[in-house]
């Protein structure tokens, strides 16, 4: 007998005892359904993995922003500020800043009314204003150094305001006096008196002159004015005169450009 024939017969005989069970189809069906359930379980696992990934990203982001000032600065500039700008509006006022908040449904009762309908004044931060004085004596009392004001003023010029302040920790202070023609906003003459010597810079002076025997510096400076949105800016020439006398630095500044050097010297000489 050839081995092949014997093998065929032997394997057929060996395998004939194996028969499929009657419930094989049912078991296959159950297995299919179970594996489909496992597929869902795998899907759930993916969802969990996605959630875990999200948590990881948040954790890493939190650590990065917590530990890195650069990251915080970037987030403040690129994310936080734009978001806050939606809810807050900062309105610059002449005297300082008025911070207002868009408040949901403030105006209307019931269901809240119109969304973002009302403006609630949250806080008013006045810019630190300098004390204002009506007399030179009052200003002198505050700043602690002599305040001499001009006795001569060009025609039409009057005192508009006088302010000043001094630092608590040092004796440095200043007085700023504004003269002008009331009905002509362009005509303004600023006198600044300070005991801070750094205020005096002679390097930019175009001309050295004498004010009551003291060296003074006369200079011109450009003033750019824009009158209206569609108009070209115009440039005017302002004048400044600076000198030092008895430890105080005086600066006269004519922003209208209307006063001549002689006029300015006359004003400076009249300080008393």
């Amino acid at each position, binding site marked *: *007998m050839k081995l*092949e024939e014997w093998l*065929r017969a032997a394997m057929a005989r060996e*395998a004939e005892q194996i028969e499929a069970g009657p419930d*094989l*189809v049912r078991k296959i069906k159950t297995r299919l359904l179970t594996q489909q359930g496992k597929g869902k379980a795998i899907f759930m696992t993916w969802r969990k993995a996605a959630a875990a990934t999200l948590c990881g990203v948040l954790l890493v982001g939190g650590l990065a922003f917590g530990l890195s000032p650069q990251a915080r600065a970037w987030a403040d500039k690129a994310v936080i500020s734009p978001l806050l700008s939606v809810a807050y509006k900062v309105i610059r006022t002449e005297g300082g800043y008025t911070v207002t908040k868009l408040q949901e449904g403030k105006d209307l009762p019931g269901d809240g009314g119109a969304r973002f309908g009302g403006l609630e004044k949250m806080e008013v931060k006045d810019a630190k204003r300098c004390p204002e004085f009506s007399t030179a004596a009052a200003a002198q009392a505050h700043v602690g150094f002599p305040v001499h004001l001009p006795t001569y003023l060009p025609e039409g010029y009057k005192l508009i305001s006088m302010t000043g302040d001094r630092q608590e920790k040092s004796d440095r202070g200043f007085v700023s006096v504004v003269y002008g023609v009331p009905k002509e906003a362009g005509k303004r003459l600023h006198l600044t008196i300070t005991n801070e010597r750094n205020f005096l810079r002679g390097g930019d002076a175009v001309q050295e002159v004498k004010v009551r025997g003291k060296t003074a510096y006369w200079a011109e400076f450009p003033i750019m004015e824009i009158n209206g949105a569609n108009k070209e800016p115009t440039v005017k020439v302002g004048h400044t005169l600076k000198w030092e006398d008895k430890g105080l630095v005086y600066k006269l500044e004519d922003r209208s450009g209307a006063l001549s050097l002689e006029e300015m010297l006359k004003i400076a000489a009249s300080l008393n």
Partner: protein
Amino acid sequence: MNVAPLLKRIQGGDWQAFEVLVEQYSGKALRTAYLITGRKDIIEDAVQEAFVQCYRKIKCLRDPATFETWFYRLLTRICWRLTSREKGTVSLDSLTESGQEHALCDDRIGDALEAGETKRLVQQALGRLSIPLRTTVVLRYYNDLPLKEIARVLGCREGTVKSRLHTALKQLADELKLIAPELFLGGEADAQRAIHPGKEGLQSEA
């Protein structure tokens, strides 16, 4: 048998048609799995898994004529996987090879002598073959698949199949000469034919 209409219905989602297919192929599939693995305890699992994969992937089967090759490919892969997974365990069937069958089940002693002897010889001889060789032998001499189909099932070349068959038959002949010399009582010429039995057949088929 033409399974093309049946397969078409299954591909259309007909569960009844799939049940018919399972009934038609489950017996042969179980017996093939048994001969490949040599174990009864895992063959039902293997066949169930093969049919589950068959149901899931059958839409990918374009040519119904290749169904058997395709299905046996699934089955053999699963059998190999289960066999390698269960390598560390000892099956009851394997115990019969070491002569412990009497200690375990004395009622088998009463079985027909010839049947018992054949069973012992097949288990012992096939059990000594490696899984790829055993699978090749089973597909060739039990499932009667041509060499080309076996190559497709196993994912190798025909030459490899021929080589495996030759090696397997030589090993079987050597094994059987030791455990059943009566099979080779026909003299040296018969013994040589037994050792190289399929050479002419393999050459003629190729």
